[in-house]
């Protein structure tokens, strides 16, 4: 079984090497299929490994394997350790499965790009990094994976490097994530000082011996990393900008896998977080505020991908609420279903953008359901799942989180419950605002111009782009059935062993009640969206006439987070450096004595050029004489 896991990890890096060395010798399509095939094999290996893991008795499902010692200093050593258990298996299946579909989709999406081979190599690199992140069994290796996913995310956001906005977005993502990396690194140092080890097993075994303060500080630092990677408050501003990258990237990295790494981290370190209940409460609060804020901002965005990006932030905030409530299974369950329906929505959006020749503004769309019926149908499934409508997958998983909040029955639990339901209303509105604006109402003049031509020539899109969307639709529709309250509990019983302290498990009654309320709330949201957007975009009238204009403006500016960072960090730095340049540096070095110093240096420099005469034999002679002198000195002294 472990061999299969190793193969899963090794395959993508083999793909990277092959594509990097032989990429130009392969035809572009061939390179794409090669990368996809690698992912398919990796998925097969991961699936078989998971089945083998499932066939073991429950106590033996946690496999730790050390390949070799990587670093060793004194009694400290870091190995290339691999940790394979139930949680890893879930992540492995998501990464390789959704990864495979998105690789195939990319073949169609990047068909006309001359650099599609580089794209495929980066994609494989990303998958390798992500697998390393979830498979590592110590913090050092985790940090390596953590950094590598950041790197591949940077490379892929900035893939179109002649687009200045994309480069700026890539830098922003990288810098924000660097803050998180530093958090995890310092957290690792602290844990090493406290416990003397960085392996998961050592940390989990020693967690109980930590005082609450020690555990809290370590958890807070890990949380900084999780917040940065998962685009949660207050380190979330990079995610919407990251949409400048190609759409498959948004689907794979910025929806399905990388941004959920924070949720994985918290679920993985649950024995440590268990010692820091205050940090867990903080995670819930951050989650609730984040999901409401992102939902509100998503209401007014006009770029189709940015709406989905804010929705991603909001859904990950739900996952944070889930893991923060110690209901790790529901957080990971939502991660699982979210991977399907959010990747589906992104890929669908990619098809729409493709059909409209790169247009991303939903105001320039409309009425596309007749031209793109298949895309419409699939995205509708995704939208219903996202809005949490029973019986689509998102309904089960989101309600599992909310039902856990209900069963916790503490003030925090109630905040999470009410906030989560309010968020569900927002989700219904913004999701169906998007659906109605894109697919219903009258077609915009732009779409009227472009779409008949595009549909005539390409249909709804190449089959490499359509099939992944179909398969994801099946997942988005039915993945929730793994966990029907009171009927099936595949996910819960599968993930239960990852937490030694148990998890919050709501009763079937609480779950059904939440499902009922959640569906009603979601449908209400859809109804509101229908009222406002289905025929005409009537919302602008309401805003122009009402008092909501200021709020609208604030939401459009994404609640001023970007401006806040610009005015607190960017501008002061610019002021300080231009002040130093203009008023300190330049005058000082034009000051006469210092100028004399400069001339003196130049004089000495020129004087010594005599010995640099370029004759190699002279150098050798001086060298030999020097060594001779040293030997002579040693002899005389000795």
């Amino acid at each position, binding site marked *: 079984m472990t061999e299969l896991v190793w193969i899963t990890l090794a395959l993508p890096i083999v793909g990277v090497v092959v594509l990097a060395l032989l990429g130009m010798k392969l035809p572009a399509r061939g390179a794409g299929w090669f990368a996809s095939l690698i992912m398919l094999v990796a998925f097969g290996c991961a699936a078989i490994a998971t089945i083998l893991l499932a066939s073991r008795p429950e106590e033996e499902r946690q496999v730790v394997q050390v390949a070799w010692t990587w670093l060793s200093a004194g009694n400290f050593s870091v190995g290339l350790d691999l940790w394979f258990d139930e949680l890893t298996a879930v992540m492995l299946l998501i990464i390789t499965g959704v990864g495979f579909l998105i690789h195939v989709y990319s073949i169609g999406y990047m068909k006309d790009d001359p650099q599609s081979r580089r794209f495929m190599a980066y994609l494989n690199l990303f998958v390798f990094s992500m697998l390393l992140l979830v498979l590592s069994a110590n913090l050092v290796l985790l940090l390596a994976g953590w950094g590598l996913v950041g790197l591949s995310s940077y490379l892929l956001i900035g893939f179109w490097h002649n687009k200045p906005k994309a480069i700026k977005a890539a830098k922003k993502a990288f810098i924000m994530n660097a803050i998180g990396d530093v958090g995890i690194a310092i957290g690792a140092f602290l844990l090493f000082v406290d416990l003397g080890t960085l392996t998961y097993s050592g940390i989990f075994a020693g967690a109980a011996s930590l005082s609450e303060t020690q555990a809290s500080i370590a958890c807070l630092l890990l949380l900084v990393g999780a917040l940065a990677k998962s685009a949660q408050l207050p380190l979330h501003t990079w995610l919407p900008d990251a949409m400048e990258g190609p759409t498959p990237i948004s689907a794979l990295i910025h929806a399905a896998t990388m941004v959920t790494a924070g949720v994985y981290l918290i679920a993985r370190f649950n024995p440590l977080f268990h010692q820091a209940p205050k940090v867990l409460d903080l995670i819930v609060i951050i989650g609730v505020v984040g999901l409401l804020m992102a939902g509100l901002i998503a209401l007014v965005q006009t770029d189709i991908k940015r709406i989905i990006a804010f929705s991603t932030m909001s859904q990950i905030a739900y996952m944070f609420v889930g893991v923060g409530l110690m209901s790790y299974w529901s957080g990971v369950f939502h991660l699982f279903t979210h991977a399907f329906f959010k990747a589906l929505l992104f890929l669908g959006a990619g098809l729409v953008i493709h059909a409209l020749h790169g247009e991303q503004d939903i105001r320039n769309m409309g009425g596309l359901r007749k031209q793109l019926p298949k895309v419409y149908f699939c995205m509708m499934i995704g939208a219903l799942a996202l809005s949490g409508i029973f019986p689509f997958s998102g309904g089960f998983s989101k309600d599992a989180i909310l039902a856990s909040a209900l069963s916790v029955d503490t003030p925090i639990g109630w905040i999470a419950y009410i906030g989560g339901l309010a968020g569900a209303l927002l989700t219904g509105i913004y999701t169906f605002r998007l659906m109605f604006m894109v697919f219903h109402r009258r077609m915009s003049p732009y779409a009227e111009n472009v779409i008949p031509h595009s549909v005539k020539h390409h249909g709804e899109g190449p089959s490499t782009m359509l099939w992944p969307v179909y398969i994801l639709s099946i997942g988005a529709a039915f993945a929730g059935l793994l966990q029907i309250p009171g009927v099936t509990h595949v996910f819960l019983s599968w993930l239960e062993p990852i937490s030694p302290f148990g998890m919050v498990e709501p009763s079937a009654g609480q779950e059904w009640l939440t499902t009922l309320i959640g569906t009603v709330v979601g449908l209400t949201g859809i109804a509101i969206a229908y009222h406002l957007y289905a025929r005409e975009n009537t919302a602008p009238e309401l805003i122009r006439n009402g008092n909501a204009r200021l709020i609208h403006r604030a939401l459009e500016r994404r609640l001023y987070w970007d401006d806040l960072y610009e005015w607190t960090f960017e501008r002061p730095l610019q002021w300080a450096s231009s002040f130093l340049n203009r008023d300190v540096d330049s005058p000082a070095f034009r000051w006469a004595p210092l100028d004399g110093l400069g001339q003196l240096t130049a004089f000495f420099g020129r004087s*010594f*050029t*005599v*010995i*640099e*005469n*370029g*004759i*190699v*034999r002279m150098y*050798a*002679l001086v060298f*030999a004489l020097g060594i001779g002198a040293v030997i002579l000195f040693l002899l005389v002294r000795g």
Partner: protein
Amino acid sequence: MGVSLNFFLGLSAILFSVGLVGVLLRRSPLTILLSLEIMLNSVNLTLVAFSREVGGSDGQVFALIVMGIAAAEVVVGLGLVVAMTRREMVLDTDELRTLNG
């Protein structure tokens, strides 16, 4: 113990001096490389001689590494000589002094 250590060391010193003089006096890059090889091999001889004296194999291993490095160095050096010949440059180190200060 047939030959004593001192003979080896003496031979090595002679070889080293021959090489050094070659490096210092000759101007053709090819001959300089040859002289360098002689110097390296004199050091190898010392290493192996000491290794035989002490009885361990460390010195022999080290000598092997020196040979490997020397081979790599000659590859680069000869490559340079060939490249210079192709460009019809003068093969005289005293003339090749574009790097003077």
